[in-house]
């Protein structure tokens, strides 16, 4: 089976949240409250243990003639459906002490719910803040990349439900190419700020959920330099070894002084 991926094209997204609903329905995830955030039309706010797809609403300055919104005071909306990035080098997978988090044959990072013990170390190891422990259940949850559907040869529920094909699902390399072609196509139409979010040059070494956005990805809470926390480990263990050595030496010295 080839390596699969999502390409979420925010220039096609209409903010309908069908992906959120389809995800919740297929994966049988519980509701996550009924709150009024005041952040545009986004009351879900972030992905978490009960939200595996999340549509972000960014209000951009008026741009007459683009995006179909020609009102003088109404902002132009940018929508983008966020999801687990299924990193090539995944912080959660590296950190998991039980081996509950595994890599599937098609590239997904999957939390096995029958092995997860709820230590919540993955929560602080994800550079995108995706995986979260369900405090009532006691285990960590995140997007499964619809591994069950993919094993049966089906597309993930969110991609299947997307009415505008904003969420594209397919082979990773093909989608990378498609994203570049789409940027060129938009450029030809006079949209010059389209970018592909794919942090290949960081320690994450690429993701399986590419995003095509207009403007700075930081408006969409996407970090410019996501780093896998294992990169800090060499420094940490070196320092721990020195600390242990000094501690042993100091203790021996202290008691050596008492021998007379």
């Amino acid at each position: 089976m080839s390596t699969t991926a999502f390409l979420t094209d925010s220039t096609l997204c209409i903010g309908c949240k069908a992906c959120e609903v389809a995800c919740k329905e297929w994966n049988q995830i519980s509701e996550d409250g009924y709150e009024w955030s005041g952040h545009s039309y986004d009351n879900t706010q972030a992905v978490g243990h009960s939200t595996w797809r999340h549509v972000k609403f960014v209000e951009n300055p008026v741009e007459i003639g683009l995006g179909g919104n020609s009102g003088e005071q109404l902002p132009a909306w940018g929508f983008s459906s966020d999801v687990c990035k299924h990193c090539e080098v995944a912080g959660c997978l590296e950190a998991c002490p039980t081996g509950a988090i595994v890599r599937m044959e098609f590239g997904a990072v999957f939390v096995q719910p029958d092995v997860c013990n709820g230590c919540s170390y993955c929560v602080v190891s994800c550079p995108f803040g995706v995986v979260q422990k369900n405090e009532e259940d006691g285990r960590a949850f995140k997007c499964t990349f619809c591994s069950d559907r993919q094993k049966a040869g089906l597309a993930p529920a969110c991609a299947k439900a997307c009415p505008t094909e904003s969420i594209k699902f397919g082979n990773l390399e093909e989608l990378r190419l498609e994203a570049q072609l789409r940027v060129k196509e938009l450029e030809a139409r006079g949209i010059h700020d389209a970018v592909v979010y794919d942090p290949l040059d960081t320690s994450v070494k690429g993701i399986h959920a590419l995003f095509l956005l207009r403007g700075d990805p930081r408006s969409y809470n996407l970090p410019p330099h996501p780093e896998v926390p294992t990169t800090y480990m060499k420094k940490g263990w070196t320092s721990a070894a020195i600390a242990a050595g000094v501690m042993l030496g100091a203790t021996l010295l202290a008691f050596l002084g008492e021998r007379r």
Partner: protein
Amino acid sequence: MSRVPLPEVPNRLPDVESERRLNEIRRTAAQSGMVTAKGVTPVGAPFPQASPETGYYGVPLLKEPQWTKEVPLYFFVGGAAGAAAVIASAAHLFTQDDDLVHSARWVAAAGGILSPALLTLDLGRPSRFLNMLRVFKLQSPMSVGAWTLTAFSSFSAAAAFANAIRQKLDSTPVYVLENIAGALATATGLVMASYTGVLIGATTIPVWNNNIETLPPHFAASGMNSAVSILELLGHENSRSLNLLGMAAAGYESLEGLMLETKRTRINEPLRKGKSGWIVRLGGVLSGPLPLALRIAYAITGNKKLRRAASWSSIAGSLLTRFGWVQAGHASAKDHRIPLELPESVPKVGMSSHELADMHMKMA
């Protein structure tokens, strides 16, 4: 098992007062066809924006740590137990003070039993601890820690047990057994005292990973500080070596505190400001300069009260240090500006709904 309630995100819908005002405006609009007065200000207004300078409405990018209070408590207990095992072996090697060896072995063993219990409380179900023993992963500090703790618990308990038998029956095999178990407990104890620094350092939480180089020695010194103090309070108040070790640990903690106060980076802000800042600071004073001064004063005057005060201060300081660092991690995770590398010059506007939720929690 305590169930942590999810934070309530407050509604930004208008309240009774603003609803009344809205009705007034509607009435005016119906009567005169135009409203010139100011409208209603919703809770937390002005709302933060989504932009390259402000991030996504100030919603935190990273998730907060979800450990229960038992985890920082475990950092304290495990660190003290590990250091106690080191003291036991050194005292056994160089002194005739069998009482001290006995006490230190038992402190180590007690910590070795208490630690898995604390972690189990965090996980919620005893069998869940065993899940960590189905694999060994060098790239996961949590996995290395779980195995180290398991080994340490066994070795320290064996050493304490052999020591207890030796007190009644002095035979060579028991003596050899105690020494082997003691050596292994010392080796794993050294890891126990320092690995927790790597554990929190090798994460995405900025204030933790930014300090990964200084965290292991900081936690090791903190562990030694509390182990020495616990042994002193157990009656080993005349050991000159323990006082020396306590001085060394308090001295290192003073340097650490000085470093944290002078390294005034933006990432280190939770270590200086807010609730976490005060816990870290108080912990630093109680485990650094205060016991150091008291121990020096004791060495000069010989007043045992001073030394006892140093012991209590060190234990409280070590405990606060662990809680402070975990608390700082929470504050750091909530700051969306660091992982997004937002410009420092742009002032924060309004409150995100997460900050509002925090405010409501504090008020409740």
